[in-house]
Each structure stands twice: as C-alpha cells, then as structure tokens.
C-alpha cells in the first residue's frame, strides 16, 4: 500500500496552489496528488474554450513540473472513500493510499435538477474534458439547442452553440441571467447581446418536464409551452464533490465546512476550492464560492496550514468575483452588489448601452464594482475590498475614474 505524508485529492487550481505552498515550507515530505481523470491537470474554466476550439485542451502543468517539486502525480485514480479513522484513502479501483495529512480538493460536479423526465433523456453537461469533447463533437450537427441555466457554463455554451450555427434557447428560472454575479441592469445588457446574436433568452422560466422526442427531446415550460431540442445542455450550477467523505466524520453542509485555515473538523483533513464551504468576507456565514481566484487562495492557505508554515495568513473570506467575456464584450464583477441603507451606489450606463459601471461603497469603502466594457483592474479592486481601505478624499475621484484612482491607491499602499 502506498504511503504518503501529504495526500491531495484533486488536481485543479486549489490542489496545485496547495502543492506549491507546501513545498515552500516543507522540502522533504512526500506529496501525492490523485486526479480522477486519466490526464494531466486541467481547469474546468477552460472547457467552454475547448468546446469552441479556441483552446487546444491546454493542461495546467506537465510531468516535469511535478518532478521538479518531487510530487507524485497519480492520474486516473479516483478516491471512493476516506477512512479518516485509519488515515486511508480507499480507491474506486481497489487498494488504498495511506496519508498523514489530507487535502480534499475534489471540486464540484454538475447539479442535476430534479425535473421529471430529465434522467430519461440524453443531455450534455460541461465539467470534464470528456464532457467538452462530447459537446464539441455534437456542435456541427446541432440545429436546435436548449441551454438549461444562465450561469457561466450555460452562457458560454450558448455562445459556442450560436457560433456553430445552432438556434439556441437559454432557459433560466431566475428573472435574469448570471444572477450570482450581476445586477439586473448588467444582466439585461448581457442578455441583449445574446439576443442580438440570435440567441433566445427566456428568464423567470421554470421547466415542468422533459421527454424524449424525435432526434432529441422536448421541454415543457412553466407556461405550458414546449421547446424542442436536438441538443440539451444542463448548466444549472454545480454541487461540491463531497461523496468521498461520507461516513468519514468530516462535517459537511452544502460543501465541506472549513475554518479560516481551510481546516475541517477532523484534525488531519483540510479542504479547499469548489468543494469547500468557507467563511464569506465580512461575515461569519460560510458560503460556496466556486471560482478560480478563490480556489487558488484557499489552496495556498490550506498548503501553508498543512505544512505548518509560520508565515501563514488565514483566508480573508470569500469575495464574489468574476470576469466574463461574451461576443467580444467584457464583464467584470468584484464584490457584493447588495445595496444596504449604509451604501452609496453610483451607476453609469453609456449612451450606446454597451458600457455599464456600478460602484457600491459602504462606510466610504469599496464593497463592490461591476462593469461591462469598462476598464478597471479587478485584482486591485478585490484587494481594496479585502484591505477595507477608506477612500477618504480620493472618493470623488474614485467614483469618477475608478481605474486610475485605484491604481494610485494600490501604488501608494502595497506596490
């Protein structure tokens, strides 16, 4: 049986970030990463671009990278169960790996909405490289596509399908697209770009049932209308892949509950990335925040904690962040769009309606900033929020020109 000091389940952003952090503090002990896919590590975020053909299945790291860090990379190796009492990761294919310290960075799997009939029809999801290959293969022969869910995966897929020449309908239960990241105005701008490209966007629209039909399936909506599809893509979000922890004693809510050092309630088990449910910035509530920047940060914290790096800085709390490109447009979202009583909100929309900016200040500090085709540095904005920097006299200038003003604040304070 293989024994390892550090076992990392998963091989995407959080896992790789943790590996780097461990090696900074611990040059000696064994590290083993296990990846469910029989492939080098890749990012689920890249998959829409693989589908579109823009990316040729780029892998995040190669074998040499692991060799340079003296880490064992086991591909095609799925962990079925964690036996926390014995420090064992039992493998789906039989056998086990003994560990001293475990990081669960197993990511998330596509949510399967409880829609009658869905289980009986053929549909696509987009979470793995195999999913991407299957979808890409299906593109040329798709004439009528339905995308269920207007999240990032769904929106990207819809754009790809439209580019491939299919008639596309996006169905979203919420009243707007991208509800997790953008307010209604921004979402409206995004939706109109899709509409201009010929994509039908139907929001506030539930699906009653799905049934097989000639060449595909048909969806019956809440209003009784039927939408046929020769390709159905389900993009209704993801759920943390916590299955391997069942019975392990690790506390799970929606994701694996972790403290600010990504530590679970079990002494030698940590979790990071999409599988983890960590504190949100500025709250005590724990949230899922399945985005790359958060995974990288959590992986770093977990790695430092596992290797007992004395320089550890605890996780500051999750902030909602995203960068989204669609039909040549850029949408950026940093922080919260909630507008409480103590908030000051500035919103600007350009004449041509292609450009949109919204700034939310709370107590004279940045709480959120959102833009479409507006230049600002999201990384600087994120840091302004985390550092709770008072804009003070710079406030008016910031509201007028957030990009330049934020750069000046950054340069003065932490460059």
């Amino acid at each position: 049986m293989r024994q390892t000091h550090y076992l990392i389940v998963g091989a995407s952003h959080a896992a790789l970030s943790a590996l780097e952090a461990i090696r900074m503090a611990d040059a000696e002990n064994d590290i083993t990463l296990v990846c469910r896919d029989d492939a080098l590590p890749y990012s689920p975020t890249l998959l829409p671009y693989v589908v579109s053909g823009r990316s040729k299945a780029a892998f995040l790291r190669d074998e040499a990278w692991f060799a340079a860090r003296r880490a064992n990379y086991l591909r095609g190796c799925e962990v079925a169960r964690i036996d926390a009492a014995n420090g064992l990761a039992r493998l789906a294919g039989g056998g086990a790996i003994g560990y001293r310290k475990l990081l669960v960075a197993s990511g998330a799997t596509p949510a399967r909405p409880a829609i009658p009939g869905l289980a009986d029809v053929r549909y696509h999801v987009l979470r793995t490289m195999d999913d991407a290959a299957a979808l890409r293969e299906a593109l040329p022969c798709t004439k009528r596509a339905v995308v269920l869910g207007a999240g990032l995966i769904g929106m990207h897929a819809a754009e790809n399908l439209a580019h491939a020449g299919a008639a596309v309908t996006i169905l979203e239960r919420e009243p707007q697209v991208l509800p997790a990241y953008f307010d209604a105005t921004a979402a409206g701008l995004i939706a109109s770009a899709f509409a201009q490209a010929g994509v039908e966007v139907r929001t506030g629209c539930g699906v009653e049932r799905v049934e097989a039909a000639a060449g595909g399936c048909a969806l019956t909506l809440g209003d009784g209308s039927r939408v046929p599809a020769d390709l159905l893509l389900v993009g209704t979000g993801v759920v943390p892949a916590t299955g391997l922890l069942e019975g392990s004693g690790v506390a799970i809510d929606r994701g694996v509950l972790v403290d600010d050092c990504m530590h679970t309630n079990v002494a030698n088990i940590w979790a990071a990335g999409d599988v983890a449910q960590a504190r949100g910035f500025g709250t005590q509530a724990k949230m899922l925040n399945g985005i790359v920047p958060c995974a990288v940060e959590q992986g770093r914290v977990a790695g430092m904690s596992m290797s007992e790096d004395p320089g550890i800085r605890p996780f500051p709390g999750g902030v909602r962040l995203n960068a989204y490109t669609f039909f040549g447009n850029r949408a950026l979202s940093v922080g919260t769009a909630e507008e409480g009583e103590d908030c000051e909100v500035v919103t600007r929309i350009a004449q041509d309606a292609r450009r949109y900016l919204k700034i939310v200040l709370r107590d004279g500090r940045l709480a959120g900033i959102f833009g479409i085709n507006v230049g600002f540095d999201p990384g600087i904005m994120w840091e302004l929020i985390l550092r709770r920097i008072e804009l003070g006299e710079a406030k008016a200038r910031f509201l007028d020109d957030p990009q330049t003003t934020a750069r000046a604040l950054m340069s003065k304070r932490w460059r």
Partner: protein
Amino acid sequence: MSGYNTIAFDAGRCTGCGECMDACVQAKSEDGDLAHSRIRIVAGEAPDTWELAMCRQCGDPRCVQECPAAALAKNAESGVIDWNAETCVGCLLCTVGCTYGGIVWDESARHVIKCDTCGGDPACVKACGEGALKYLTTSRIYNEFGDLEDLFVPGLAGCQGCNTELLMRHTLRRVGPEVVLATPPGCVPGMGSVGYNGLTGSKVPVFHPLLTNTASMLTGIKRHYQRQGRDIVALALAGDGGAADVGFQSLSGAAERGEQILFVVIDNEGYMNTGMQRSGCTPYGAWTSTTPVGREAHGKRQDAKNLPLIMVAHRCAYVATASTAFMEDYYAKLERAIEATHRGFSYLHVYSPCTTGWRFPAQKNIEVARKAVESNFVMLWEYTPEEGLHLTRPADDPRPIEEYLEAQGKYRHLDADQIAHIRRHIDENVELIRNLCARPAASPLPARTALT
C-alpha cells in the same frame, strides 16, 4: 532557484512626464497609442505626486496560478512572467488575480498585455531622465553568492534591527573559508562571533585581537602564510572606534607597509557595544553617552574624522566607502577589495546605523542608512592608486539633511545653528570629495556605476 533583476520605481523622483510610457509604446506597438503601454504612471493622491502600475514579475505569481489555459508562466531563466498568445483564451482571470494592475486588457489589441522587461533591457528605464525608474540587478548577489555557505553560526545576538549581522554574514560568505578573521572588541564579537566560554561563533578561524592591534596581528598571520605559499585572506571586521581611535596606529602602520589585509570597518559612529560612547567617528551634534545633552552641552562639539579619506592618503591598494542600504554596491566593492589584497592593503568603510545608539525604531535601519547616503551625509566612492577616486553613487540632488536628522533620536535636540553647521560640513565634504575625484574624461566610470 534564481533571483531576478527588476524594474524599481522611486515615486519621489517621478515628475509624471510620461516618457516611460511613450518609450514602452514605441517599443511594443505600432500605432503609438498610449493605451498599449505596459507601464502606467498615474496621478497620486496628493498634487504633483505620481504612482505606478505595472507587472512586478512576482516570484509567486497569482496570475499564473489563476490562468486556466497555462498561458502565463514564470520564466525560470529571466524571471519574467511570459504570456503565451497562442494558448491565451482571453478569459481575464489573470486580471482578477493580479493585485498590482500588472496585466490588463488592451481593447484595440484584443488581448491582455504585460511588461516583458524588453528582454532585460527595458525601454522605459532608459527613457526616464529623472532616475525614477531603475533596472535593479541586485539579484546578482543571490544568484552568485546565495549557495555559498554562511560561515557564521546561526543565532548571533545582535540588537533588534541591526544591519551589522547582515554585513558580517554577507562578507564572510563571499570571502569564503580560506580566511583568518579578526573581530576586535565591539559589536561584532559582542554578537558572539568569537563565542563564549569555549564555544565558537563561526566556522572559520576567528579571534579577538586587542582593540588596538587588529592590523598588526593580521600582519603576522598573513605574512607567515605568504611565507608558506598559502593564499589566505586576512580579514578584519572592526568597529569605527577601534579603527579610527585607539587602533589607528596599527591600522596606519599596516597600510603604510602595504600589508595584504582586507580591513572592513563597520562604522556605527561610536562605541555602541559598550554603551554608546563617542568615538572619533561620531558626527558633530550627535548625542552619545559621553556627549550628553544638557544646559551646558548639546551633543558632540567636533566633526567626525574622515577615516576613509585618511586611508586614501596612505595610497592603499583599494579604499572604498559603502552602506548597508546599498548592498549591490557593497558587493561590487567587496569583490574589488578582495582582489586588491593580492597587491596591498585593502580598506572598506561601511556605514551601518545603530538602532539602539542612534535611537530609531528597529525596522527603520535600512531607511536611515539610505537617507544618510541620499542626503550626502555619507558618500559612496572608491579609490585605487591607478584610477584615483570616484563616486559610485551620484551626489547630485541630495535629500534635505533634515530628513536624515529627524529620523534619529540622537539629533532630536539640535538647534538651527547646529543643523546649519552640519549642512555646512556636508557641503564642504562634498566639495572636497568632488575636488579629489578623477576627471571623468581621464578615467571613465566602471560599468556598474551606471546601474546604481
């Protein structure tokens, strides 16, 4: 693992002229639109101040970790974060990861852009006429000497924030194990370099000479090894008191005889190890425990003696001044000083502020050391009999002396007349050194001075 060169920005020198951005656009794009600039100077919060956003070529780059397409990578050779146009999918996650505004979307180019240091010859630095941008090559120290063994034991007991330990470790690391090290009474052995009660503080032969006879004891050691044909560096790490005052006779004698010794004086302007008494190197006006401040007295009444210039008068094989705030300069001089010991006496005078005795917070040491140099309170130069004397850091455009004096408690009592005296003394000293400097036409400055 290597250290890398980097573009440094001194906001205090930037005038916002934008020449750097023009140069960047010229170098990196065809249409000359400033939007393509990889370096971005922006107005600061205060009027007429300027700030910078550009890629820092981080050692632990978050943009690289956040890129889902492996389009960004730290180049192990150059240290630059390389961007790959082929694999980039334009997802903008790198711009979320970077907290410095170092990688940004170029709307007209339709891709992200970032600084690539022009392959190690950055156009922006060359265009900056104000000295606000510098291409620092300090990584040379790490790359060339980082693997050399630290020949002092861990845990020397210096005061918090003291730079002398830094200097000791760097110096001995560079000189190497074929050395006999003399550390006369003072802070250097006070930290435990020779050790206590049978325990040693270094991995090389080390001893306490008397405060008075460092250069003489090293003379005997070096001469005997020369007689035996062994090439061993006779090294002194001495304080200013032992060198300039009671130890001066033996120092002068050894220099006059051209003994092949490397004599490093760590000048903290007094007898700091024994309770901060004044030495011949204590500057005018400074409080020390023997030049106290009271109704009748206001610190030291005399100017410091300029020991390195006195050593120049000995026509040593090499004389240089250095500062712990300018380690690259120090390393270059240490290199030349070691080499010069094959010809004669080699003397290095390093200004090293004393957190305890000069009365400033421990974390301010490098800042105080830098201000001393930047205000011309001390000057960085080197001398050889062949090349004469020349500055290794320009003395033009100094900081106001008040910025240096105000940083230290030992000058807190100074009145306007005393500050005027100090200013006058600095002016005289700058004038004197300038007059001694070799004419640039006759003796071109070595290449490295262009970098500092």
